[in-house]
């Protein structure tokens, strides 16, 4: 299947190379090229794509600020000439990291890797008979998490927050954390409602468990959860702010 993508890149030569590689591969369809984060976000508000090729250092907002404002989770390949962003890239769960200038061979390796990740994630999302997480009754106050080779019953009230770990999701409770093979998007569909809210592309929080909020950080029992810019309004609307 051909992946749809956009290129967010302020250096024309770099963007031209990328477009050429996408066309040559016949694996990626370029829906647009944007020189800055604002224009890219405007496009992404109207249309979803499978993949972002994202430069980090651009005039105005940088690539990570775009990720903060995204309201869904496409695959991300960072394209930068600085290796110092590797830690941030890990935190933002980017799928790959291409150091500019890169060759067609390196580009293809990155696309192959994405396709493998997508293929591995697909059964978990598409096979309804063996879901990784079972929610037996739509309005039940518990769920079962498949972890540690068993199905573990967890009360929804006990969940502090969920964190995306690429192809896995970590459920954090006051006593223990559980890691299950699934995606945050999958969990979002099962949990979002009265008490759970997505506050960042990598986090869903239990609103009842929030201790306080300082700036763009939510504090829950000693844990710090970042608030993505695209999620701040939703969060504020859900809180009883006096």
């Amino acid at each position, binding site marked *: 299947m051909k992946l749809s993508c956009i290129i967010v890149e302020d*250096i024309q*030569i770099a963007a031209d190379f990328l477009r050429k590689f996408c066309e040559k591969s016949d694996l990626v369809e370029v829906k647009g090229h944007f020189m800055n984060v604002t224009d890219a976000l405007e496009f992404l508000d109207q249309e979803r794509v499978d993949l972002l090729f994202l430069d980090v250092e651009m005039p105005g907002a940088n690539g990570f600020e775009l990720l903060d404002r995204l309201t869904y989770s496409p695959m991300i390949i960072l394209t930068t*000439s*600085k290796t110092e962003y590797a830690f941030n890239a890990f935190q933002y769960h980017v799928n790959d990291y291409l150091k500019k*200038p890169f060759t067609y061979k390196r580009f293809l390796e990155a696309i192959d890797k994405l396709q493998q990740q997508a293929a591995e994630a697909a059964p978990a999302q598409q096979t309804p008979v063996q879901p990784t997480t079972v929610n037996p009754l739509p309005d039940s106050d518990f769920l079962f998490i498949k972890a540690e080779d068993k199905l573990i019953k967890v009360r929804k009230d006990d969940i502090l927050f969920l964190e995306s770990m690429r192809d896995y999701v970590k459920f954090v409770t006051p006593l223990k954390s559980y890691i299950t093979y699934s995606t945050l998007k999958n969990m979002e569909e099962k949990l979002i409602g009265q008490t759970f809210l997505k506050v960042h592309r990598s986090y869903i929080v239990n609103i009842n468990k929030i201790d306080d909020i300082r700036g763009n950080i939510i504090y829950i029992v000693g844990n710090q959860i970042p608030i993505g810019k695209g999620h701040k309004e939703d969060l504020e609307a859900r809180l009883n702010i006096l």
Partner: protein
Amino acid sequence: MQKIRPSFVFDENLNSSFLEELFEGDTIYAEAVFEDFLKDLPVYWERVEAAYQDRNLPTLGTSVHTCKTLFGYVGFTDLQELCQQFENKCSVNSPEELRVEYILLIQRKERAQHIIEKEYTRLRLFNGEND
């Protein structure tokens, strides 16, 4: 991309093995990229000069960063390294402390620009002869 034209050899000052891998022998595309480089570099370099004059070191670092990327696409890997060092120093040094390195960077940039102008001419001739 087109079939490799092995008879074109890049200037010895450039990282030719990387350029061969990057362009995969497509000298028509190489010509276009070298042309774009010559068109884009002065625009980006103006930002470097303006930032240095304004003593705006964060912008100076970002502008040199952009030029560094451009140099990479025409095979100046050694100049990329020099840009990276300068970029790093922008966050810790004053404009006065950077003066000597800034002058060196200007000299290297001008030399690089001159080499690429010659390479662009050679590529045009080569592609014209091999039409």
